[in-house]
């Protein structure tokens, strides 16, 4: 294992959390200049291993050598000094600072007692040109897309002269176009001598950019393979321990009457005064899965928030089962719809509540969970939590008593999906339900969604991933700049065609 060309050498790393060994005796060498992917089920310990390298966790056992020298990475600052940078799954940018300010934050250049932005600006612009990281230095973070924010994070690392770059699920939040760009950027960085560690659940991406891939399972390293010559199937099997299917099996839909009917819905952004959702009408019927496709930022999120009552709507109507829900409270809506929200930390979870409390978030006030005098029935809470944990294979250190905050990203997502699907509502609204999930979990969740459909529920889903859209949908609605560009049949269109609608190039004629 010991190899002089290895820039990083993990030796017998063990990191324990209460109730679980997140990393179990992991030894792994990373070669200089390679793109090394980390693959593994949700909760396998990928993020933990990277956090150990970046100095956020101190391992109980084992050592790390960098450039042949044993080091103690006690905190992220030490990591930065060692030339290690990390782009976290949830970015760490100051919202009301500009891109440039964020990049140089803490490393400002000065002339005498004054800030001298010009030197820094020049350097940042040079870096951005060299690696093809297009940014607008003076734009506020709050005004730019997720893809741009990510480029800002990458520049932040490069500006600090990082040589070893860690990306924790960088593509989970990106649109397909942005993913392609990022892949190009990563290859360029590697060519310039950077070493890249890259966590992903998407096997295609790994095959596309990575040189080698290491697979973790339940805290242990199971294999390190050549990424190009290994098949997707082999990777899937190694990580899950059994064969996985990458396609959704389903019978043709048998839609019945309308469940959700959206009529002329318009939402105006308070600040820009732009119509982010513009006169949108569509319906979702019993027994079908309608998927909203589109590039991020074309009004899909707002449309969903409008329907679920989290954002006020300016015009139009929302009808469910024929009843007008436009003015109803969120609680009233929750009685007939389930909602897997886009932002799992903002809406989906109370991070400092235990898992059992989070799983009961939509039920705690219902009969069985609370008695007539307002006392919670914790036996019921526990029973219900254990049931969902088993059914959806939610993994964590301490079962139902685990704080949501300490769960792995994918398992947090599974908890939300479990809770919402189990509501068994007439209408299931699922926004990127499989974001951050491993291939095995994705297969399971897709199956559950199809099962809901087959139980005559209406499903409205939103996804940026075209593969998922084509696979799961019975009907596709494409949105562009707040409007519906067309309603498509996934069996009759090609991925390329959907792409044209998404880019606003093609548009279905308006039916009268």
């Amino acid at each position, binding site marked *: 294992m010991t190899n002089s060309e290895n820039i990083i050498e993990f030796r017998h790393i063990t990191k324990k959390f209460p109730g679980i060994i997140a990393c179990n005796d992991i030894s792994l060498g990373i070669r200089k200049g390679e793109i090394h992917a980390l693959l593994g089920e949700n909760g396998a310990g990928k993020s933990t291993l990277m*956090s150990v390298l970046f100095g*956020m966790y101190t391992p109980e056992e084992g050592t790390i050598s960098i450039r042949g020298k044993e080091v103690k990475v006690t905190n992220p600052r030490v990591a930065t000094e060692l030339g290690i940078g990390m782009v976290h799954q*949830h970015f760490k*940018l*100051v919202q009301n600072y500009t891109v440039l300010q964020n990049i140089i934050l803490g490393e400002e250049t000065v002339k005498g007692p004054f800030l001298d932005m010009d030197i820094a600006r020049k350097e940042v612009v040079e870096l951005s040109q060299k690696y093809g990281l297009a940014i607008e230095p003076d734009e506020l973070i709050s005004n730019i897309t997720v893809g741009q924010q990510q480029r800002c994070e990458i520049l932040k690392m490069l500006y600090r002269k990082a040589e070893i770059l860690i990306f924790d699920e960088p593509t989970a939040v990106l649109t397909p176009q942005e993913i392609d760009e990022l892949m190009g950027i990563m290859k360029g960085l590697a060519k310039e001598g950077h070493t890249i560690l890259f966590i992903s659940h998407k096997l295609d991406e790994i095959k596309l950019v990575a040189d080698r891939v290491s697979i973790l399972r339940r805290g242990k390293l199971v294999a390190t393979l050549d990424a190009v010559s290994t098949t997707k199937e082999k990777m899937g099997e190694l990580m899950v321990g059994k064969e996985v299917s990458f396609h959704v099996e389903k019978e043709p839909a048998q839609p019945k009457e309308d469940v959700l009917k959206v009529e002329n819905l318009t939402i105006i952004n308070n600040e820009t005064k732009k119509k982010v959702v513009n006169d949108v009408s569509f319906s979702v019927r019993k027994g079908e899965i309608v998927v909203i496709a589109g590039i991020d930022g074309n009004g899909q999120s707002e449309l969903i928030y409008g329907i679920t009552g989290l954002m006020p709507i300016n015009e139009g109507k929302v009808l469910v089962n024929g009843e007008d829900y436009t003015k109803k409270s969120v609680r009233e809506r929750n009685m007939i719809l389930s909602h897997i929200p886009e932002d799992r930390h903002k809406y989906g979870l109370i*991070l400092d509540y235990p898992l059992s409390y989070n799983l009961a978030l939509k039920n705690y006030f219902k009969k069985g969970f609370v008695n007539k005098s307002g006392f919670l029935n914790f036996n019921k809470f526990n029973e219900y939590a254990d049931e969902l944990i088993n059914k959806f294979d939610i993994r964590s250190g301490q079962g139902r008593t685990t704080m949501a905050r300490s769960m792995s990203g994918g398992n947090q997502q599974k908890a939300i999906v479990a809770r919402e699907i189990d509501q068994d509502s007439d209408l299931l609204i699922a926004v990127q339900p499989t974001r951050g999930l491993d291939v095995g979990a994705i297969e399971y969740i897709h199956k559950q969604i199809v099962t809901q459909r087959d139980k005559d529920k209406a499903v409205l889903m939103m996804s940026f991933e075209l593969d998922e859209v084509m696979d799961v949908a019975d009907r596709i609605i494409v949105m562009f700049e707040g409007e519906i560009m067309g309603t498509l049949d996934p069996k009759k269109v090609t991925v390329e065609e959907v792409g044209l609608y998404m880019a606003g190039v093609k548009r279905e004629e308006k039916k009268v």
Partner: protein
Amino acid sequence: MSVKPKKSFDINKYTGLLASLIAIVCGLLIAFIILMLTNPAKGLDAFMTIITGGLGMGGFKNIGTLLFFATPILCTGVAMCLAFQAGVFNIGGPGQFSIGAFVAIVTSLYFSKDLPAPLSWMIPVLAAMVAGALWALIPGILRAYFNVNIVISTVMFNYIEMYYILHWISLTCYDALKGQTRPVPANCKLPQLFMPALTQNKASDIGILIAIIAAIIVWVILEKTKLGYELKACGKNPDATRYAGIKSKRTILISILISGALCGLGGALYHLSWSGVYITFKLGSAPEGFTGIAVACLANNNPLGAIFGASFLAYLTVGGNYMQIFGFQKEIVSIITSIIIYFSAFSLFMRHGIERLLLKGKTKDANELEEENT
């Protein structure tokens, strides 16, 4: 590999306790230094008095005094525990406390003094709770419906109370001779029952028992009921609370109402006691309101912890009073006790420090770090 879910070992609970202890030790240390600087010869003796005096000097009878001081700050402390857990930063304790005290005095003087036994004291107590709640409600409404920062509005209401209360006292219950409120009629004071016998102190009454019961009730509400589930959820993540269909306006109003009522209760129990306290005709805030914040911090916002927090701070107050024996001026005494009290309020702060230093990596994760950065 993964163990069966058992009763969770919550490391946070222990860091909380450790933080409180460290905060207390720091406070004591600084107090000691100041004492040594003011009077090197007597400093050590005086310091020992603070630490041991609570029970040592006056014998067992001090227990009564201790409980008397603990009663109001337990009420305000519990009030803060509840408000802070719900994410409502009610800093209006002093105002709500004084309004409660005033209403209790006035109700007993003008209304309940001719009523039969339990009513004669229960009515002023309830009136004080209602008054404290209503006084807190206004900033609550401003927060819920107009999004006015609750810290600022509750502090402003402390100022409003500070001026108005003197005006109202002068209109209703002013004793011009002594420059303070008129004494509460004896039959309106809190029942004493077995308390004097228990504490060997003639002035003891059931105030502390009522305060402890209040603390237990609030704990039960927070930990065992649907309302508590909603309040805490609101304090931890208002967005997710909205997503779950919980009405956040209603939650804010309920928590500040209960919080205000508890402060009002503190005012009533203090002023209906047998120890003979009055509202003096001087401009100023009731310190019991602010001390409540320190109690809540020491208790890590746990109402049961507040029982110990309040007792500890009361213990220091009693001990501090004995320092005058060594020739320390009254003002020094209150400076010293305040230092210790306000240092206790730093315990939250300490907690973060401890987590960083000792338990690095166990309680922090990326998300938490991220929150701190932004």
